[in-house]
């Protein structure tokens, strides 16, 4: 391969990057998703500077201005104890993003290795792992986190772990399906035939070729994780007052929202925007990474 001289590697790398950039630019919805997620990240990172009343997110009360409608001073209005809802929504972004990422990471951490092992080694181990996963999947979506929350108590950590414990089987299934395809490929057979150890094959060949559906699913799931976490917090398993968390804010607003619509509208919109953003991102990633659609 005379063409592969020193300078060529840079060019190949750069060509790949600009190809992906072209794919991204072509997909308007993906750009929208990236824009939304980017905005969420910025809001979460710079929350103390964006929120006009940062103290309201942690416990300040200003009962004199309670339940004021949205206006120039309080963009989203104030709640029943006078806290600025805009600031609380902004700080809630931090909590929601962290919890969402935490849930997906834990689920990946448990599900990916199990999926790899089940798919690659097959046999009795595969059976065992699949039966355990089926057991977890037999529960309707919110129910297992509720039962776990009921058993372990209510805090954001429990919220996170409970949802992750309900979600990891999906990753096992996803990865196992991919591994079953990948391990039949010729390069795997070739590697085995020259004596490459199993764990090396897994790390070098199987993972990199099986991972793209998992990446797509993980980015979609970030949105759903935020939704699930907010739903659990709404029920009561999750953040406790006076923490600013979107689901909790909607729950707290239940008593007066009929006459003061802004107390529940804006946190809900925040959840909605987050889920849509990650959904578009995930769908867009799928369009980019799936060779059939390219």
């Amino acid at each position: 391969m005379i063409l592969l001289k020193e300078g060529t590697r840079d060019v190949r790398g750069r060509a790949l990057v600009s190809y992906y950039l072209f794919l991204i630019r072509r997909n308007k919805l993906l750009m929208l998703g990236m824009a939304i997620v980017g905005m969420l990240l910025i809001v979460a990172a710079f929350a103390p500077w964006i929120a006009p009343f940062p103290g309201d997110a942690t416990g300040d009360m200003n009962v004199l201005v309670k339940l004021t409608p949205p206006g120039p001073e309080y963009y989203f209005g104030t709640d029943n104890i006078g806290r600025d809802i805009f600031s609380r929504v902004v700080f809630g972004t931090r909590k929601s993003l962290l919890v969402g990422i935490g849930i997906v990471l834990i689920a990946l951490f448990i599900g990916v290795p199990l999926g790899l092992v089940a798919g690659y080694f097959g046999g009795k181990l595969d059976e065992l792992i699949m039966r355990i996963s089926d057991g977890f999947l037999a529960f309707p979506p919110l129910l297992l986190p509720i039962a776990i929350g009921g058993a372990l108590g209510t805090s954001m950590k429990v919220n996170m772990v409970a949802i992750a414990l309900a979600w990891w089987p999906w990753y096992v299934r996803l990865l196992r399906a991919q591994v079953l395809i990948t391990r039949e490929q010729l390069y795997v057979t070739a590697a085995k035939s020259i004596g490459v150890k199993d764990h090396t094959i897994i790390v070098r060949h199987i993972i990199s070729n099986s991972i793209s559906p998992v990446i797509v699913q993980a980015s979609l799931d970030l949105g759903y994780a935020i939704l699930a976490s907010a739903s659990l917090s709404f029920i009561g398993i999750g953040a406790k007052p006076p923490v600013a968390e979107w689901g909790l804010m909607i729950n707290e607003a239940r008593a007066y929202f009929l006459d003061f619509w802004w107390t529940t509208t804006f946190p809900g919109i925040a959840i909605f925007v987050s889920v849509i953003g990650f959904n578009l991102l995930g769908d867009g990633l799928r369009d980019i990474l799936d060779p059939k659609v390219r």
Partner: protein
Amino acid sequence: MTLVLLMVSIITFLLTTIAPSDPAAQWAGTRPTPEQLETARKELGLDKPVYLRYLLYIKNTARGEFGTSIRTRQPIIRDLLGYFPATFELVTLSILISMVVGIPLGIFSAVRRESVPDHLGRLFSLCGVGVPSFWLGMMLQLFAYSMLKTFPIQGRIASEVSFSHPVAIKTGLFLLDTLIQGNWAAFKSAIIHIILPAATMSFACLAFVSRMARSSMIEVMREDYIRTSKAFGVSEQLIRYKYALKNALVPTVTVVGLAYGSLLGGSILVESIFDWPGIGRYVWLSILYNDFPAIMGVTIIFAAMYLLINLIVDLIYAFIDPRVRYSR
């Protein structure tokens, strides 16, 4: 299927073992002496090793003895059976709505691909997936209460109507019972009370079902046999609604099983908002009161229902898809 039930029972049993509340202390009552606690432990079989306790747990669950609720002080099974019809009515109606509205929407979208209605439909699907159901319920309540003032925002039936025109309970489903009875006033009240909760619950489901219907219809329309039919001059209408539709419906049916499960979970959120006297609201109150035995009872029941529904869906799937039938 039995293996899965086994796994479910193991998981729920493990949850009961790690729960902080001590069943013996609850059994013995307030301020028990150590001897009473010991007797309580022996009574409940808590001193036996784990695997024996598991067998005892299975035996009790199979018999329907879920224990007594801490909050209502009733046997949990009685609570569950009492509240079940309300939830069943709501969830079933929601599924029906989402199928009746969602499937035609999806098919319509697929047939007119890349047109303005299609894009609108896809936008709607995207929104449906992202909207938190509890928030949507509250928004609908705001809409109904502040602006329209026509739809009630809680309960199953107006209390005045239930006094003046009492419902003769046969199935527990108000819509059916009032029709059977001929109780027109109560029927109207029941319908108007169920509309908002059912709309809330079916919204997310609808979006998902229409997405599935659309993508499976598009896939079917690409198939060779469709092209062949067109080449033979079969009319477009006939192709779409006889050949394509039947095949497109098959994956959509399997989605219904999944949807039922998520609706069971979602009923917890929606019933609490609309004060709908069903199992969902029961769970929500149990969480509020830390009533762990009740939570576990509902978990087992919902998991069993979900498994049953999926089994039925699998059977229906085998029934409508001859390929599955003949491959056995």
